[in-house]
């Protein structure tokens, strides 16, 4: 599988979160928690996951899904599955 540069991944994931959560760009810092800090509801969080899996054609196992609670954590888990 081809490697996607980390900064590109971060940018893509952020864009997805902005779209789905209809959030301001400044609010989505790498460590802002989706539910607690950004006010995404759990279904929005699910949809972020669904969009990521579709875009990168990966399937993230259940035990890792729960770890994807912020932008940086999401990129971290995603990177593990892409490489």
């Amino acid at each position: 599988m081809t490697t996607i540069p980390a900064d590109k991944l971060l940018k893509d994931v952020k864009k997805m979160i902005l779209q789905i959560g209809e959030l301001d760009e400044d609010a989505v810092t790498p460590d802002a928690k989706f539910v607690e800090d950004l006010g995404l509801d759990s279904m929005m969080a699910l949809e972020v996951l669904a969009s990521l899996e579709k875009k990168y054609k990966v399937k993230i196992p259940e035990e890792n899904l729960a770890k994807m609670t912020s932008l940086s954590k999401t990129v971290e888990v995603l990177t593990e599955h892409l490489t």
Partner: protein
Amino acid sequence: MNKKYDVIVIGAGIGGLVCATSLAKRGQKVLLLEQHTSPGGYCSSFKRKGYTFDACIHHIKIRKNNSLLSNLIEDFGLEDYVRFKLLNISDLVISQSGEFTVNSDVNKTIENICEIFPKEKANIKGFFDLLNTNNVSYLYDKTRNRTFKQLVSLFFKDKKLISIFNCLLMNIGLPMDRVSALKAYYFFREFFYYQSYYPIGGMQQLADALVSAFKQFNGEILYKSDVEKIRLSGAKVTGITCRDIEYRAEYVVSNTDPYNTFFKMIGEKMISKRLANRISKMEPSIPSMNVYLGLSNKIERNYDTDKSLWYFPETDFSSIYDNIENSAPIVDEKYLICSFPSAYDTSLAPNEGTCMIIFSGAHYETDQYWAKNKNRLSDIVIERARKIIPNIEKCIEVKSISSPQTSYRYTRNYKGACYGLASTRKQMPRSYMPQKTEIDNLYMAGHWTTHGIGQGGVSMAAFSGLSAANKIIKNKKRKNI
């Protein structure tokens, strides 16, 4: 030029009513426009010779203290205007394998289903645990990219057990191999884990209560007000035209379908090709033919008529949806889905009579087709209803029939669709028909918009209305900063 509003909401169905009330409660100056003479859309009732019939909705599902509808009822103070009756047993399902009831206590329902399928007991409990889970990643793992058929096959092997769930999916209007697993999850969670309530006086009372709350928060509502045009300046809304009068507003919410909103009220030329293309290809949910019967107190009963009945002992349900798409489903199928609202509130029928409403999935046809065929088709349905009430034909005092065209006329739902956009996997993501449209300050509410959790049903419509209101408030705040 007329008065200027903060927000104009088009369509007083549940989505529009909730959106308008929520905005008015937060101090917005709101005008709500409805083309029909009364509010509610599908959540309405009508009277014929002393009998009151609910147009479409059998009952509403509430989880006390912890659901969108219970929060709204409290937040809007609806209990000042309407009383709700708890139904301890809301539904009776009569299947090939046996009968079970849906109870306000879900454990009883589970027990009942396990009695019919003792070998599947552990699997049934596993499935119900999934329905009740709050573990989002577990839910996601089980439902992702799946149809409901793929989801249930993780739990059950018994085809007759699976068929029961397929039958109940008539409440979504899609067969299990087409409906999104996530949508079905939401539906069944509500259906089994929430309690059923009936607004005393009929479903119309819920819509009327919302109107009363809306007016109390200084909202204005106009009936018989068909919006002809949503007015734009550039790519931004400026108001609407209705009966040749212009109403200006900063925001417009359309609680009608995308076809009506973008093709009729805005114009195909004013929207992107991508959106026009999507609207041309959108798949509506099924329409229905409903038969409303006012029955005398002389009826004989094979089953108690004090709850909704799902009668399908001769049907495996695999062909029903194909028939709806391709031919005359009412003739070919042998199922019955009916409700008896007078059992919840005896004042709905005179002289201890019974109101009976029979729902059949139908095929969208022209007005001429229905004018010619609806009596014949309703006779077939009534003949079938002898399984429930053997002497039904002798007891009919009032009969009224609604076709998909009737639904269209009263609610303006595209092709008379019962549940808005079909909840297929393709039509689930919130980006498919987003509430925030490509036109600035134009939002959509109701069961034709997507929010990632599926379309159709009172709570989904209410959710979309509240969500549109929240988006507008958020957008306003952002602009003020």
